[in-house]
């Protein structure tokens, strides 16, 4: 008989009184005896994806709209803000990035607010592969990880060899996490086997580095595609699935996050594997961040309420989180220019 493990009630994530949970139990029930199926052929992959039901898009949008009305106040809000800060992947992905900018980003990542030492450091900094070594040296001795976008980010339009070289180099330079992009062209033209194999190949060269797979949901058009792409990435061994590069007009949206979280939940229930989710692009306010946290908690439960399993890819979000945190403490609205620019 399969041993049933109720994760949400076992692992207590936050020491603060985080009351995002409703009285209902949202915990994921995991079959520990089950495992991720070995994929031998594209036909087999297709048959697994065929078992996924279609996404009720109206339902998904209504669900997040409902969750967005939830009121998070006082100590719960403080706890949520701190948790959100600790989940930030502080990101700079510009052609104009310099070592100087990365230095200041890393400094801010380690100590987001020099005025208040109780502010947690962020989860990671996210940079292009050529700046990994520099970020690594600045972050030495801290808990902040270095994430690198690789595989010809953001388009992913390069041969597999080039992509793998990109990843190898980032890992060799000291990246703890690799953010890869899937081949959306292959996915949209139905070559899902190729998408799968690429992720498997990248995962292999990642070594100990965690692999985040960017689905670029803004280019996948439908929620059904988001669900399918999530499954392909998870079957191929992703540690995280990530919404967007932030480089196309449509980035992370709450319904997309809901669909991905449901995929993660279903994957955990059927295979026993726990995969993280990263939302990225367009999240600028603390209010948005807290709404995402509510969706996480209501969809997959408190197990995922940790930087190990949920991340925000953002740059300006951190300042708004700090500003709202200070507002809670001082009781007055704060000047945005009290915080360093990005």
């Amino acid at each position, binding site marked *: 008989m399969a041993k049933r493990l109720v994760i949400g009630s076992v692992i207590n994530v936050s020491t603060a009184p985080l009351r995002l949970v409703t009285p209902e139990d949202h915990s994921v029930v995991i079959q520990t005896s089950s495992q991720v199926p070995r994929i031998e052929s594209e036909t087999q992959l297709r048959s697994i994806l065929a078992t996924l039901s279609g996404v009720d898009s109206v339902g998904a949008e209504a669900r997040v709209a409902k969750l967005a009305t939830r009121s998070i106040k006082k100590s719960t809000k403080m706890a949520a803000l701190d948790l959100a800060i600790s989940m930030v992947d502080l990101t700079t992905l510009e052609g104009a990035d310099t070592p100087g900018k990365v230095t200041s980003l890393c400094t801010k990542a380690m100590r987001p607010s020099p005025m208040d030492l109780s502010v947690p450091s962020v989860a990671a900094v996210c940079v292009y592969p050529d700046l990994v070594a520099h970020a690594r040296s600045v972050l030495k001795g801290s808990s902040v990880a270095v994430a690198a976008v690789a595989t010809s980010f953001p388009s992913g339009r390069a041969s597999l060899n080039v992509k793998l070289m990109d990843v190898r180099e980032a890992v060799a330079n000291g990246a703890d996490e690799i953010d890869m992009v899937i081949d959306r062209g292959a996915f949209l033209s139905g070559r899902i086997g190729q998408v799968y194999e690429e992720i498997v190949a990248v995962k292999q060269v990642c070594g100990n580095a965690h692999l985040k797979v960017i689905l670029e949901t803004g280019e996948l058009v439908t929620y059904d595609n988001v669900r399918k792409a999530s499954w392909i990435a998870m079957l191929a061994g992703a540690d995280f699935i990530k919404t967007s590069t932030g480089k196309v007009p449509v980035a992370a949206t709450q319904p997309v996050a809901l669909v991905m979280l449901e995929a993660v939940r279903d994957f955990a229930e059927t295979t026993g594997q726990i995969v993280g989710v990263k939302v990225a692009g367009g999240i600028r306010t603390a209010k948005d961040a807290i709404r995402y946290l509510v969706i996480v908690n209501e969809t997959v439960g408190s197990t995922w309420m940790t930087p190990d399993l949920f991340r925000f890819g953002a740059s300006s979000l951190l300042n708004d989180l700090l500003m709202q945190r200070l507002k809670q403490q001082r*009781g*007055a*609205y*704060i*000047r*945005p220019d*009290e915080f360093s620019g990005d």
Partner: protein
Amino acid sequence: MSDRLEIRKTYKLLINGAFPRSESGRSYEVISAKDEFLANAAQGSRKDLRDAVVAARAAQAKWWSLSAYNRGQVIYRLAEMAESRSDELVEFVKLSEGVNSEKAKASVAKAIDRIVWYAGWTDKISQVLGGANPVAGPFYNFSVPKPTGVIGVIAPQNSSLEGFVECVIAPIAAGNSVIALASEKRPIPAVLLGEMTETSDFPAGVLNIITGFTSELALGLASHEDIDGLDLEGADEAFADELAFLAAGSIKRVLRPSKKNQKNSIHRLRAFVETSTVWHTIGQ
């Protein structure tokens, strides 16, 4: 008897060029000077203030980037709009302040004239308040007045339009953006003027008007750290003390009500400008 459906007007806030109801969903009854129901007005909240500050901050840079001449044109346009809707303004000034038609008319005319007066000042402030300073050294030295930034105005409680115009248009003419708390008991003329700014090419957010309870809202205005100046005209002395104390927490420039007769004085233009002095070497 007319069988038309009665069209009742809702008096709403003005935030960022839009007319929202209060985010709190609250409203309150405005009573005329004769103790009769006049209208329902939005009862603004701290969050409405917060939204107005965000809008005003963004708008201020835009407003100041216009040429002084252009700012004058926009403010003059407001006078044009007020003139063409002056009957409505007169009606509500009369009802709000309990004065007769003659007095109300005179008051509205004066208010519109003051808008024109301040419109004329936009491109003259720098000559009057600034200038070239003689210095002992090979330098040109200029003093240039610049707007303080985002100004919170507690408008006079009694003078529903004239007083409002005086306190609000002056800082705007000097290049600031404004968040005004309209008179608590007599807010309607101010709300009407706010509607007119939206047909006068005012960039959204330069003037924001919040109606509601002064005792509640003024505290939020004084303590908000992203407001640079505070005009306390509509607060009594004890309350003004409290607000000035709060404002000191974020080093705001504060204008206290003055008992001196300052008719035609430019003290309100001067109140919310900062003087920036520039040294420039003299060279070939």
